[in-house]
């Protein structure tokens, strides 16, 4: 289950400058764990102490907001693209 993750510039310091990384994961929760394992400290940046995504970050699976899917339990399939986008924009 390889998925492609788009990393915003703010988090690229944790990925050695990589804007896109490929990881194995079956769900968003699994992906967050995989990100932390590959890039120690990543999880703590994008999640709060309880492991919930910070409220000012949006995650999209193939352009769909995970809040329209299954939130952090959203299943991932081979070839899915996940983008991490700061929420504070627009209007």
């Amino acid at each position, binding site marked *: 289950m390889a998925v492609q993750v788009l990393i915003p510039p703010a988090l690229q310091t944790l990925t050695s400058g990589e804007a896109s990384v490929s990881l194995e994961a079956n769900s968003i929760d699994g992906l967050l764990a995989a990100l932390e394992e590959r890039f120690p400290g990543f999880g703590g940046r994008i999640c709060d102490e309880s492991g919930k995504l910070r409220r000012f970050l949006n995650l999209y699976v193939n*352009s769909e907001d995970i809040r329209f899917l299954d939130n952090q339990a959203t299943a991932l399939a081979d070839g899915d693209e996940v983008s991490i986008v*700061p929420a504070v924009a627009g209007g």
Partner: protein
Amino acid sequence: MTATLSRSTFSGLRCKECGHPYPAGARHVCEDVCFGPLEVVYDYEAIRSRVSRATIEAGPVSIWRYREFLPIEADPIDVGTGFTPLLRANRLARRLGLNNLYIKNDGVNMPTLSFKDRVVSVALSRARELGFSTVSCASTGNLANSTAAIAAHAGLECCVFIPSDLELGKVLGTLIYNPTVMAVKGNYDQVNRLCSEVANTHGWGFVNINLRPYYSEGSKTLGYEVIEQLGWQLPDHVVAPLASGSLFTKIHKGFQEFVKVGLVDEKPVRFSGAQAEGCSPIAQAFAEGRDFITPVKPNTIAKSIAIGNPADGPYAIDIANRTGGSIAAVSDAEIIAGIQLLAETEGIFTETAGGTTIAVLKKLVEQGKIDPSETTVAYITGNGLKTTEAVASAIGEPFLIEAQLDSFNSAWDRAQSLHRATWETVG
């Protein structure tokens, strides 16, 4: 760079959530800590020492009479934006059962007939200072009009992004300034996400993304002007449309700043917000007593306020709660009736966002949530000539007559009987 800000009254940016400081560059997100929104930090003592009612009254007849409260360093791009009419709306007030109603009419703002000219004037002034040569935005229509027009005036390159299903008047009203227009197959929230990604890679100044801390400050002038136009007094109650929630929170901030620097006496002001039922994530959260927003997929004729994932929604809810205001939603039919009511009683033709505001105003009065004696200001943020298709099927049509007196007389008789029938229906 912050040490060199000589004429300016701001010193940098700060996270609204965690307070982490940042230099005054093109950034909008607390990237080092919590990803919260960044806000401009002002030196209010410096502002207090420089401004008075007299200095403001002697300033230009535009938003730049308040330049000490706006985040720019050098000369602004002044295209005459702001200082739009505050109209005492007696006929509408009588119809609704209010005694002291005012309409702040930004449908005649310059240069593009919406409140967006305020935020864009500030954002592009700052963009120029920060060295951007290309400016951009994610827009529901009005913002694209404004960004393209003011960029043209300032000689900046411009590329704007809109949902592909916008009203023709809004698309034409952007294309005329000859920017590059990207019509995205998707809703506004999808446009916004795309733009966040483009902003990361293209080095452009996006007025409502990486320039958002400066941009959003422009809406404070809608608060300042109302205070000044009411004879240096605060109103009791304001009703404004909610899209991202930014306008609403910045009117509130504008009121607070004038109190803070001693330009107006403090008093409680209730803040009520208006949404369309087909896109009402903030009204839904307010009704359910939540402080977080669950995004929705928009389906309403009020396209200019159709933001399903509103960035400042939680802050708007907080202000409505703290001030004793309300947030309500109305149907598309009520929105059209609101547009017609404002036009027929006050001679103001507003777009769907304004119809939403008037319909919510009416609803709140009917629910007893606005006291008739309160000095109430309804903010009309856009012009109806841009969205004629929204009302085309609801309004009458002309009497087609021959150029002869007989033809006129018989049509006039028909008009009078139609008029009587309408009155009988209204009761």
